[in-house]
Structure formats: structure tokens, C-alpha cells
């Protein structure tokens, strides 16, 4: 009897796994289908090569080059700055502070930061900018995004380093390496694929976030020409265009979403390839 029941258990659990997989796949395909079906008709060369002309938001000529460039600037800038702090922090947590109470405290703070809604980051960035007397600008947006991406990246990298086999740093110490040499020449080499994935995860979160750049980077029809000029972004382009009463403009919102999806997908795939390439040298 016990045997029968175990088989049944197995079947039920498998069914649940299959169902959840199907549900996720269904959602993904539905989203992709909606974006492609509604966005593709109005996706044109003009959309990705021109900035909005007069009357664009009423359905007239122009494109969203301003938002594409703005989003890339914002997300790349934010990711680079977050990387500058997240990577050393992750190394510090694991190589210098390992097992100490401080490390746990820092991890807890990062987890809390991770959970804070992005609109709060936006409001925080905005408050700081007002205090400094800044206007909405590319730099403000980049710094706020960096703030948003930092805990995600640091925590993801922390997990990557934590899974490092302890024999690897020992092999380096045995050769008379200092902590710094071990960290940068050996540990980094081993975890490069994981670091690339962590950076991408944060980049994806950054480029898709609307709330944090709403107040801080603003929105403009022009391509930003300095760190202090405001910058448009794709999520906000979707948001504003969907909010208009004109069907043509709403359709353009979908094609903006399609462009955003393609960018994220492209970066995701190329980073997968990169991680795979780098992984050749890692020790498993």
C-alpha cells in the first residue's frame, strides 16, 4: 500500500511542477505576444532613429530615440556606479569580514534595501537633489538608479562569492599571495561568469524601472547632451504614451515596450554567451 501512495505522491508533485512551469511559460508568451502584436505594426525605422517631432504625442511624426538613448545612458551609468561599490563590498564581506557579525549586519541591510519600492528611491533621490539645488538631470537619474541597483548587485555577487570553494583561495595563499592578490587575480577570475550575471540582473532592473527616474531624470524630447540635462527613458515613454487618448500613440507605447524588451533580451543573451565563454577557465 505504501508503495502505491508514494507513486501517487510523486505524480501529484510532478503535476504541480508542470502546472507552475506551464503558468510561467503562458504568462511570458502572453506578454511577448501582446507586445509584439500591438507594437510591431508601428515599429518603424523612424521610431528608433528620430526624436519626437512637434505633434508626436498626438500621433504625428517622430520616434523615441530620445528615450532609447536616455535609457541606455541611465542604466549603463547606474550599473557602472553600482558595480564600483557592489563588487568591493561583496569581496569585503567574504574575504575580510567572513563569518563576522558585521557581515551579517551588512547582508541584512542589503536585503532591506532590495525590498524598498523604487518610488521610494525616486523620492529619496529627488529630496537630495532639491537639497543640493539640482534640477532633474541625467546625473540625478544615474545616481538614483545606482542606488536602486546597488543592493541587488551586491547581494547577487555576495552569493556568487559565497559559493566559492574554500580550497581555491587557499591554493593562492599557499603560493604566498596577499589577500588583495587572492581577491583580484584568483577569486575574481573564478567568479567572473557569476559577476557578469549579477551585473546584468541589476542592469535589467535598472533599465526597466520607471518610478525611480520619474522625478530624478525627468523627461525630454531631446537627447541628453550633458550629465546635467534631463533624460528621457523607455519605461516613461511607455507610461506617457499609454496615457494618451489616441490609439496611434498607444500603439507606439507598445512598440517602445517592444524595443525595451529587445534591448534587455539582447543584453541577456550576450551576457549568457559571455558567461559561458568565461566559464571555461573556472574550476568546478
Amino acid at each position, binding site marked *: 500500500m505504501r508503495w502505491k501512495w508514494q507513486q501517487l505522491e510523486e505524480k501529484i508533485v510532478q503535476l504541480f511542477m508542470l502546472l507552475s512551469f506551464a503558468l510561467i511559460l503562458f504568462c511570458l508568451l502572453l506578454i511577448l505576444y501582446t507586445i509584439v502584436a500591438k507594437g510591431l505594426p508601428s515599429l518603424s525605422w523612424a521610431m528608433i532613429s528620430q526624436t519626437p517631432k512637434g505633434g508626436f504625442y498626438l500621433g504625428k511624426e517622430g520616434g523615441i530615440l530620445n528615450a532609447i538613448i536616455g535609457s541606455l545612458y541611465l542604466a549603463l551609468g547606474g550599473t557602472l556606479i553600482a558595480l564600483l561599490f557592489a563588487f568591493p563590498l561583496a569581496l569585503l564581506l567574504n574575504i575580510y569580514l567572513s563569518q563576522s557579525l558585521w557581515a551579517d549586519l551588512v547582508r541584512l541591510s542589503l536585503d532591506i534595501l532590495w525590498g524598498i519600492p523604487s518610488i521610494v528611491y525616486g523620492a529619496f533621490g529627488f529630496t537630495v537633489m532639491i537639497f543640493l539645488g539640482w534640477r532633474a538631470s541625467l546625473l540625478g537619474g544615474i545616481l538614483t538608479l545606482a542606488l536602486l541597483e546597488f543592493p541587488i548587485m551586491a547581494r547577487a555577487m555576495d552569493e556568487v562569492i559565497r559559493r566559492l570553494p574554500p580550497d*581555491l583561495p587557499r591554493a593562492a595563499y*599557499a603560493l*604566498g599571495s596577499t589577500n588583495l592578490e587572492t581577491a583580484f*587575480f*584568483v577569486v575574481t*577570475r573564478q567568479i567572473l561568469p557569476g559577476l557578469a550575471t549579477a551585473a546584468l540582473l541589476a542592469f535589467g532592473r535598472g533599465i526597466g524601472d520607471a518610478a525611480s527616474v520619474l522625478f530624478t531624470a525627468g523627461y525630454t524630447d531631446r537627447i541628453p547632451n550633458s550629465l546635467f540635462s534631463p533624460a528621457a527613458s523607455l519605461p516613461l515613454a511607455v507610461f506617457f504614451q499609454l496615457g494618451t487618448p489616441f490609439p496611434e500613440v498607444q500603439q507606439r507605447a507598445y512598440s517602445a515596450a517592444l524595443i525595451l524588451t529587445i534591448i534587455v533580451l539582447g543584453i541577456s543573451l550576450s551576457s549568457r554567451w559571455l558567461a559561458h565563454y568565461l566559464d571555461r577557465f573556472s574550476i568546478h
Partner: protein
Amino acid sequence: MSEIIPHLETQNLNAYYGSTQALEDVSIVIPRNQITMIIGPSGCGKTTLLKCLNRFIELEENARIEGKVLLDGENIYSPSVDVTEVRKKSGLLAQRPYPLPMSIFDNVAYGIRIHRLHSRGQLHQAVQHYLQVAGLWEEVKDRLHAPASQLSIGQQQRLCLARGLAVEPEIILGDEPTSALDPISAQHIEKRLIELKQRYTIVLVSHILRQARRLADYVIFMYMGRVVEAGPAHQVFNNPQHERTRAYLSGEF
């Protein structure tokens, strides 16, 4: 047997993990240019003793030691001694080889680069030299820039030997360096070690008595954290002074 010239020496060495004592009052000498083998049942403190010789014990959590370890008469635990210098003086062969996550060439070049031992022009020559000494050159000369992880485990252990020798140590430490290898690869390593004792002092931990009989010039027998008997191999193996050594050698525990 001529007078022993000590290269390494421990004086009243005690080691603790938390509140358990792993080494108790260990005072030994390790003769220069010989193969010293530390033998004893598992858990007797052989590996701990080895870890004390290159300050690896400091990487263990809650580990604490008392006493002295003298390398050429200088205490390696004295505060003025740089730990990286201590470790550079001894090449380590671990139980399982652990190549660095880089190419075969870079594995050997790593130590040379961080200690700036050779100029860039001489680097290739130096790498070739150490790969030859470790007996690996012929097998890898056509794929020096392939990942080290592609080598077999026996080749990896010889790569680790080459990598360790490249930092120009005086001592080679081995923690059961052949235990994870197949018999042929193990033989390779043993052959290299016998050649290398001309130039290096070698200290090996082993639980294989036959291997100890093959390789050892000097033997340290440990039991429950204490050194029971130490002396030239022929003396310990053929005429042990202590009942416990006799029992261990005859396979009673």
C-alpha cells in the same frame, strides 16, 4: 647516520581548535634535504602539524597555537615575520589538486608574476623549466593556454607541484598528495619527490605505510596529538622504541 641538520624545528607546539587540543607539546626537527613523513592514525594531528609549518593553521576558524616553529632558526610566528614570505618559502601539495582558474601557463606563471621573480622575457623559459621539473612539460607543451581544469587529476597534481616550485621555495609540504590519484599518477609524483629532495626539504603527511617505507628518510609517528616517536626511517621502521609505534607498524590499529 650523520648528525641531523635541522631545516624546520618546532618547540613545545600546542594547537587548539576552540577548546579541543589537536597538538600537545610537539617538539620535532625536520632534517634538511630529506623526505620527512608524518604518519599516524587519522585524527592524530598530522595534518594540523603540517598546517602549522606554513601558517595555514591561521586560516582555520577558532584555531590557536602556542609554541614556536623555527625555519632556519627564525620563529615564523613572530610578529615581525610576513606571512606571505613564510608561505612563499614552502610549496604546498594538497590532498586534492586545486588548479587556479586560469590557463596551464598562467598557473605556473602566477607565483612568478606576483613575486616578480623573473622578467617578462624570461617568463616563458621559467614556466617551461618548472613544468619540466614536475614532469608535465611533454604532455602540455602544445596546449599551454588551455584551461588547467581540462587536465586529468594526476596532471593537475603535477601542475600544482610546478606552480609551487615556481615561487622558489625551500620546502615542499604535502598533505597526502597522492591519495586522490590513480596508482600511475601517484608513482609519477613519488618519483618527482625523490628527485626533488636533492634541492628541497620535503615534509609529507601519509596514512599509507607502504608509501612511507618507500619514500621516508625520516619518520615522525604521532598518536592523539602527541609525537610518540621520531627518527631516521630505518630506525623507526626496523627497530621502533615504543610499544605503540610497534603496534601501529604491525597494523594493530
